[in-house]
């Protein structure tokens, strides 16, 4: 990865710092991974339980899905790192365009 490269030719420079950074990164990834599995389990259980109304389960599952996408993008695809500003901008403007379209279709075409 371009942003993990050291500026120095000597690989031992800042080794300690980089180790610490990597360990932290790893911790974040494990935590989010566990959370994502947990969310998935919740979704499955919510459907399997059969006790809740559909009007409750559907929004909850969708909300959990959105959180998982955010985790995926920011923790596993490195969007929280520096130098991803342009990508973030384009991702969210694309999202905005798509959502406005869907919103319009939902309000004045389909429903």
């Amino acid at each position, binding site marked *: 990865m371009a942003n993990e490269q050291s500026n120095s030719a000597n690989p031992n420079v800042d080794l300690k710092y980089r180790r610490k950074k990597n360990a932290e990164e790893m911790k974040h990834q494990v935590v989010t991974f566990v959370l994502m599995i947990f969310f998935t389990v919740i979704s499955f259980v919510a459907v399997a339980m059969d006790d809740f109304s559909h009007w409750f389960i559907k929004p909850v599952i969708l909300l959990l899905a959105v959180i998982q996408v955010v985790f995926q993008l920011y923790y596993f695809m490195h969007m929280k790192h520096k130098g991803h500003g342009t990508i973030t901008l384009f991702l969210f403007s694309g999202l905005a*365009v798509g959502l*406005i379209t869907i919103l*319009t279709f939902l309000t*004045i*075409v389909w429903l």
Partner: protein
Amino acid sequence: MSTYANKKGFGATIWDYLTTVDHKKIAILYLISGGLFFVIGGLEAMFIRIQLAIPNNDFVSAGFYNEILTMHGTTMIFLAAMPLVFALMNAVVPLQIGARDVAFPFLNSLGFWLFFFGGVFLNLSWFLGGAPDAGWTSYASLSLHSAGHGIDFYVLGLQISGFGSLMAGINFLVTIINMRAPGMTYMRMPLFTWSTFVVSALILFAFPPLTVGLVLMMFDRMFGANFFDVAAGGNTIIWEHLFWIFGHPEVYILILPAFGIFSEIFATFSRKRLFGYSSMVFATVLIGFLGFMVWAHHMFTTGLGPIANAIFAVATMAIAVPTGIKIFNWIFTMWGGSVKFTVPMLYAVAFIPTFTMGGVTGIMLASAPADYQYHDSYFVVAHFHYVIVGGVVLGLLAGINFYWPKMFGTLLNEKLGQITFWTFLIGFHLTFFIQHFLGLMGMPRRVFTFLDNQGLNTGNMISTVGAFLMAFGVLVMVINIIITSVKNEKVGNDPWGDGRTLEWSIPSPPPFYNFKQLPLVRGLDAYWVEKMEGKKEMTPAEPLGDIHMPNSSFLPVMIAFGLFVAAFGALYHMDDKSWTLPIIIVGLLITFGSMLIRSVKDDHGFHIHKEDLMDDSDKGGKA
């Protein structure tokens, strides 16, 4: 491959252009083919005006008139304006940001050839049973019932050329984000580069809805689906939405580069820094964003309901604010400047009142209740020709005059340029100003004739006379180009004498590697900054070294040609002919085979060696 341009034979030159991946040559290809389609679209416009010159005319039949009208709109938007915009972008943007080429030179070439074959395919419909006849918007309720293959040509042709546009857009985005010269921050980019950047983002988001719409239309027409067929449970309004979600950003895709060109021209010939640079950037980005939230103003009368109409009306009117910012900034740029009225500057000055008039009628159309009156009348025709011809075409003519020396190394004749300008401008206003009133008097658009004694005769006659004046202007421009090319008097790197940006710091036309050493950018209008410090050229940002260049390739032509062939198979497939399936397969084999060759063949390009780049000045001068 030699570093020095040799005299080449005709065949070798053709082969060179067929295989080129150089952005400057691709710009010339875009310019030639865009110019050709512009002339074809212009001829169609002349036929329209001849037919409507007098009441009850029978110059063309009703059906043929529909085809001419449809092809005039489609050709002018997709096959003339778009490629001419791309021509200027390709010619100028890499030079303006101090890059040696675009980010993906191969893709650049592929984009051109896809556009070209898509355009040729669309125009072959004239000879193969009739052109599309449902208007350039091709509303599904009409186009699904169009007999013959016209609409299928429209769908497949636009699909192919749409791929090309999307590729070009992505290419420019990546180029501008990654390949700016050292020191060129976003807020030091020239305005034309900024508008190219915003436009490329619009292309990225606007073309997929068109692709989806065309795919659905293709399924409806060719495979018996019913996405838009109301009788079978579909919804014909969905096509209108998809088309305009693309179509409205599309008109900004055309106008924003024109704004960029005019910004360069105003600053250059007022010999002043562009007034309010940062607000210009802000306005460009804002127009880009708002452009996606207003598409339903084309559909006020389809019955979206008062709330939707109100929302889209207000959003539409909001666009007047950033556009107004730009208009005032251009005026303030000229204010107090030492203005030089060259041909590009004439276009720029004429553009301000012309475009403003188009903007004002735009606000009138944006008020939904009033739109019920104007809808589908010649008022609308007048409005969009004021913004597209008065904005985009004037911008393109100005840009072609302005950048002609950078592209070809010769200056277009000033006198002939002025003749073109005046005849075109006067002709334009004659043609379209009167159409506002024709519309308000009740003349509907897209009709092939009108009756006598309705008070429409004089107006239509004036309009036709104006159209002939415009045609005369274009003719003079073609003559101008021929004369200039034959004379071939080469000019230096800064022929206007007041160039502000990087492209004017290198020879005209630039060497194929553009910059021997990447320049160091020390402020907005980088070349001007150096000039003001008494320097003749840019400070280099790197030592002289080997330059890595891409190899030419014939594969882009093959890939595009394969789709062109397959499209014929797909088009006639619904007629139950036996030869269509093999044609589709052969076409796709050519396309995917060429792509496979591209993938598996290692092509590392070549290096221009440092020694070949050195001239006397690098060796410490002549002894």
